[in-house]
């Protein structure tokens, strides 16, 4: 008797969950829909949901007028560059921490994580001035380096946990099979670590893409990323909802897709393993 009520309960759960889910998702959905409307219809009262004149004009306007492609490219370059750089530096570090741990390994790891908690405001001026002095203000290079530094603790952390999950006896078997350290890394460790490395890359691309504090404060016309580009809509002229929607949709679409694949990585990377 207690168990046979299942289907009915399931239906109730489904209805409630979908309602809440759609409510939460609504702003995103609305943005995407509005991007296909004309400006006039975008502000229509009552709001038009599906029955309006679908158009792609906003997308082309945004692209032409504000040099959208440049900002897009900057976002890609900065997110990709900082992630790649971070991986190159983090892999050896995580490797040595996972496989040749010393007594100090744990402390070093914790210290690295704590650098992530540094409020950016606290070092705003030195970084700002540093960039000016080095001629790096409004440069992609500065952003790549800084974003790499702020995400490095997470990259190291995630790689460390993935490396630790590789069963020790497979590595021992390779040693017994005559593999030198180098061969062990190349033929056994790396192939087994690839899913972990991919997950780490994924999460970091997302974090770097969405980063807003440094991108807003250190860049202007040349190196601005999509974050800054969107921010330029905060003081607009005339009707702009539809264009804002188009620009926004283009800015968030890639990340929403990537984000769907990276839920597990999110938990692992951002709770530092304290939740499993």
């Amino acid at each position, binding site marked *: 008797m207690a168990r046979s009520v299942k289907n009915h309960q*399931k239906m109730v759960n489904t209805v409630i969950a979908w309602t809440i889910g759609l409510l*939460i998702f609504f702003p995103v959905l609305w943005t995407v829909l509005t991007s296909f409307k004309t400006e006039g219809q975008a502000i229509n009262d009552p709001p038009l949901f599906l029955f309006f004149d679908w158009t792609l004009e906003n997308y082309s306007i945004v692209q032409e007028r504000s040099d959208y492609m440049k900002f897009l490219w900057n976002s890609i370059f900065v997110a990709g560059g900082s992630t790649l750089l971070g991986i190159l530096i983090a892999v050896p570090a995580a490797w040595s921490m996972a496989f040749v741990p010393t007594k100090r390994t744990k402390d070093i790891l*914790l210290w690295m994580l704590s650098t992530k908690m540094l409020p950016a405001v606290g070092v*705003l001026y*030195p970084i700002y001035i540093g960039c000016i002095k080095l001629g790096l203000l409004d440069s992609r290079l500065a952003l790549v380096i800084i974003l790499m530094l702020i995400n*490095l603790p997470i990259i190291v952390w995630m790689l460390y946990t993935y490396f630790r999950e590789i069963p020790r006896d497979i590595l021992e078997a390779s040693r017994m099979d005559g593999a030198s350290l180098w061969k062990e890394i190349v033929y056994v460790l790396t192939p087994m670590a690839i899913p972990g490395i991919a997950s780490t890359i994924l999460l970091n691309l997302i974090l770097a893409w969405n980063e807003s504090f440094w991108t807003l404060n250190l860049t202007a016309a040349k190196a601005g990323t999509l974050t800054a580009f*969107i921010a330029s809509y905060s003081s607009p002229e005339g009707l702009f909802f539809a264009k804002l*929607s188009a620009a*926004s949709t283009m800015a968030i679409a890639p990340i929403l897709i990537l984000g*769907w694949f990276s839920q597990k990585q999110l938990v692992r990377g951002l709770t530092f393993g304290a939740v499993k």
Partner: protein
Amino acid sequence: MMAPAVILLMGWMLAPLTTTLYFSFKKYLPLRGGDLGWVGFDNYVRFVTSSSFWPSVYTTLIIVGFVLAITVIFGVLLALLLDQPMWGQGIVRILVIAPFFVMPTVSGLVWKNMFMDPINGILAHLWRFFGLQPLEWLSQFSMGSIILIVSWQWLPFATLILLTAIQSLDREQLEAAEMDGANPTKRFGYIILPHLSRAITIVILIQTIFLLSIFAEIFVTTAGAFGTKTLTYLIFQRVLESQNIGLGSAGGVYAIILANIVAIFLMRIVGKSLDAKES
């Protein structure tokens, strides 16, 4: 092999920190006279006695506090809901997770214009539908608006973490409790909630650290007006807008100390879980 990472992070931490510390003890106004010499703790005193200080602390506490409360409470409820059997659970998860991946600037602007605009926003349409005067969200309920926007962004994070934690709960414990006669409410209170307490603590600590430094949402919506100036935003203004470096640096030091206090608690928990993994 660890060297490059360690060296870089150390440099990243020390160099800017010491610079900030250095400037905090000077009176430095690049736009109005440049380096005007050492002033000891003057900046520190001035920062906390300035008329904007306590309001900014108040604002920060309110915003962080409410966002924490909303995200944790609703996060737990949502996590419980998502753990139930239903159809299309995968898709609901995606719907709920989405806001976290939206760029802060996008979310700020979308909410400000497309939802909260008193003339053309959806909420305005909704209010009018019910015959009510639309609210001027950002000017009248500025803190509330910011809280709404930030909660929307962070609810997925809390939900995801708590859902992971719930799913790690051994089902058999719940079944045993059921056989022992506990109804769903009691099972929640005695078994699920204690199991979640650790995850909730982590969510609170991590979110606090990130929430203390929220920036973009305020930047694109109110620019600190209408009483939405958080401590972070105040420091930002001192440094980049009014260019009073000494004062801003002192403020920065306060922010660092505050964040570190929270960080210590968090690191202790992470440290313990690392030890647990060793064994």
